[in-house]
């Protein structure tokens, strides 16, 4: 091969490689996944104990609770709304089901179903008010956050519901594999189902259309109101399930279950590339975002950073992640 041909060939190769690389990065989840891998390597180098079995298990366990809610929140964000009341709903459902199985002496499965029902009902109320009365989701769900916290106190009188039937501790204490229990299994199954739902079904496609431009979606015959209300109900039910898994884990209907989760969940899915403005993002991305947030928190603990700095790190990471995401979008939509 003569040198001229070589010189001609190389830029082409580099370009096609570059294009392929860009295409790869353009897939939202890959960026977050790469960032997470870097962070894991970083913490591991600083402190090998970060990748100890115990620590990995602890991270996955926490992620399984919050992650269940993140799945619903991602779907709701895709449909163009969001829910700040998920933490309260998780706590409320947990204490209600705990009361049902203790004070009301209902069989455990029925009591758990009651808890899910509470979550779904709150979701329905949120959805109806946001969609039909056109009250902004921010206001409605923020109000519901307070209402839920108040109801937790009303239901419990301020004391944790304890003791719970032994079946609950059996669920909470199960060791299915690697020391992980039912909450993790549920989380993984729900994540896969929801991801496929958004990616592959008519339902999912209509969800993206609804969140992308509600008027267009309406004009092509999509019942956008039903989609939004449905997503609100799904978030409520999933929050309830997460809350009850925590209750099983603690073997107690604690009054602080779920408090503060709403912002962790939103921060996490946003880090994972789910748009706050609707119509963009995947469940895989949202779940990876939550995982990354927890990796950072845990990593900072393991390497011995002061707890106050951990909060600061979470804040910085969230803003950075969204900033990078916006840059990425701008770069790709600018026609690279």
């Amino acid at each position: 091969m003569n040198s001229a041909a070589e010189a001609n060939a190389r830029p082409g190769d580099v370009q096609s490689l570059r294009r392929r690389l860009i295409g790869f990065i353009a897939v939202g989840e890959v960026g977050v996944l790469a960032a997470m891998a870097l962070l894991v390597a970083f913490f591991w180098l600083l402190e090998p104990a970060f990748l100890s079995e115990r620590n990995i298990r602890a991270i996955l366990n926490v992620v399984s609770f919050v992650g269940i809610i993140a799945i619903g929140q991602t779907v709701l964000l895709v449909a163009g709304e969001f829910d700040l009341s998920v933490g309260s709903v998780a706590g409320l459902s947990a204490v209600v089901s705990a009361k049902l199985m203790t004070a009301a002496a209902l069989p455990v499965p029925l009591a758990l179903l009651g808890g899910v029902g509470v979550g779904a009902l709150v979701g329905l109320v949120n959805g109806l008010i946001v969609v039909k009365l056109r009250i902004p989701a921010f206001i409605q769900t923020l109000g519901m956050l307070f209402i839920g916290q108040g109801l937790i106190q009303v239901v419990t009188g301020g004391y944790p519901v304890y003791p719970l039937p032994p079946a609950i501790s059996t669920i909470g204490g199960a060791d299915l594999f690697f020391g992980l229990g039912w909450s993790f299994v549920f989380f993984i199954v729900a994540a896969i189902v929801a991801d496929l739902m958004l990616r592959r079904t008519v339902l999912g496609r209509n969800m993206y259309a609804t969140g992308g431009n509600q008027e267009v979606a309406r004009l092509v015959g999509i019942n956008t109101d039903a989609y939004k209300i449905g997503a609100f109900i799904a978030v409520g039910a999933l929050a309830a399930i997460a809350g009850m898994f925590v209750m099983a884990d603690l073997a107690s209907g604690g009054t602080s279950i779920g408090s503060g989760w709403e912002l962790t969940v939103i921060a996490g899915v946003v880090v994972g590339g789910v748009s706050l403005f609707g119509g963009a993002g995947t469940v895989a991305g949202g779940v990876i975002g939550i995982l990354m947030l927890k990796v950072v928190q845990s990593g900072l603990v393991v390497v011995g950073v002061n707890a106050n700095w951990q909060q600061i790190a979470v804040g910085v990471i969230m803003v950075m992640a969204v900033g990078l995401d916006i840059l990425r979008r701008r770069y790709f939509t600018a026609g690279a």
Partner: protein
Amino acid sequence: MPEIDQQPLFSAVGIAKSFGGVQALRGVDLDVSAGEIHALLGQNGAGKSTLVKILNGVHPSGSYSGTIRLDGQPVAFASPAAARASGVGYVPQEIEVLEQLSVAENVFAGRTGLGEGMLVSQRRLQRHAAEIFEELGIDIDPRVYVAALTSAQRHLVMIARAIVLRPRVLMLDEPTASLSGTEVDALFAVLRRLKAQGVAMIYITHRLPEVMAICDRATVLRDGKVAVQIAREDFDAETFIFSMSGQRMQRLFPEHAAPVGTKPVLEVNHLNVPGHRGAIHGVRDVGFSVMAGEIVGLAGLLGSGRSEILHGIYGRVAATGEIGVEGKRVDIRTPRDARAAGIALLTEDRKRDGLLFNLPVGANITIGNLGPLARNGLVRGGQERSAILAAMRALNVKASSPQASVMHLSGGNQQKLLFARVLMRAPKLLLLDEPTKGVDAATRHEIYRLVVELAEKGVGLLVVASELEELIGLCDRCLTIADGRIVDEFRRGEGGEERVLRAVAAAQARDRETTMQASQ
């Protein structure tokens, strides 16, 4: 009539501008003297707004060729703010007010400090606003919130906002579009006072009776050129209509003969559609039919209710009336119902209510049409892909792949993509709102051919287009709409642009007469 200073205060010489190869203005001259109200007329697309945007700095100097002179001195406006600072004011057609602020704050928006520091004195603002209102004869309390005002009052607030800066030249873009008869009279009283103060005004309108009532001179634009300039003593509706329609280069439309003996695909009776927020015109008691294979056009000016008729039929807005499809009465409350009845709508504004920018080209075509491409709710990827590719081929949508972003497609390709979407369900009746808006000449032709092909397959078509020449060339039958009513109807060959403009002008004159009688 006051004496008009014959030395022009504000003039434009040889203004030319093009947008991406399309020549919008081809050397326009215009001048206004102090105390003159100069009408600027022309059909949609004649170049009126482009000219006004150049004159008030929206299109900055350098983006056009030609000279603007103020007091005989050449001026170059880099922005609307620069134009304002030089004494050239502009009242846009759209009402731009801050609803949550008071009238006084709106009048002084952007300079509520009155140039004297950081603090805002509500009292002083209100006093200043009251003075301006008094001077202009506007009867609005400066203290109330703009949210409580009617659209006519809002327009007066916007005019006051422009007047506060004491402009020597004032441009008004269709200030009466959303006003009723008595409100128009109030506005004219204000304009007459400004005229007496020596303000030079450029008045854009579609309404000939208003030109006759208040303007001193008129310039008619056509195809980006001045068609004619008329002095007040020569004002004559005939002249205006003739010069606005003119004889343009004949464009070729594919041949299509109106179908004979087919059944109606759409029958509309007593259709009533409410007007937009603020606008008074909706659709009032309209009835007509569209035969299978027939192309029917709705002609009329912007805001006459053309689009509202389409929206009412499609269930996009709440409407009352009887709608029948293929002889069967259907109850349409939502777009979903309309689609189920075999009706499809192509909206006017691709960016606002057509494309989904969060989905790629392929998903934009199949959205709403996924039913047959799915089994048990699961989209069958292979089938969807082949349906997309087939649709893209059939309509000649040029995109690198079904995964490409719709953002980078040309206007023409975006429009063909939307055609692919609405045609995927093989509708019986297709409602087209400005189907060739913002598309290149070649695509325009493809769209004309497509419309005729669909008609030949027996689809009924109801078309709205602002370009009368296009509408008349394409349609088998035209219904002329004015103020939400059908005022004329004619078949291919029975009339042209002139007939439409004449019918609209006659309707406007009638309306004005009745409101004047009512107010007396």
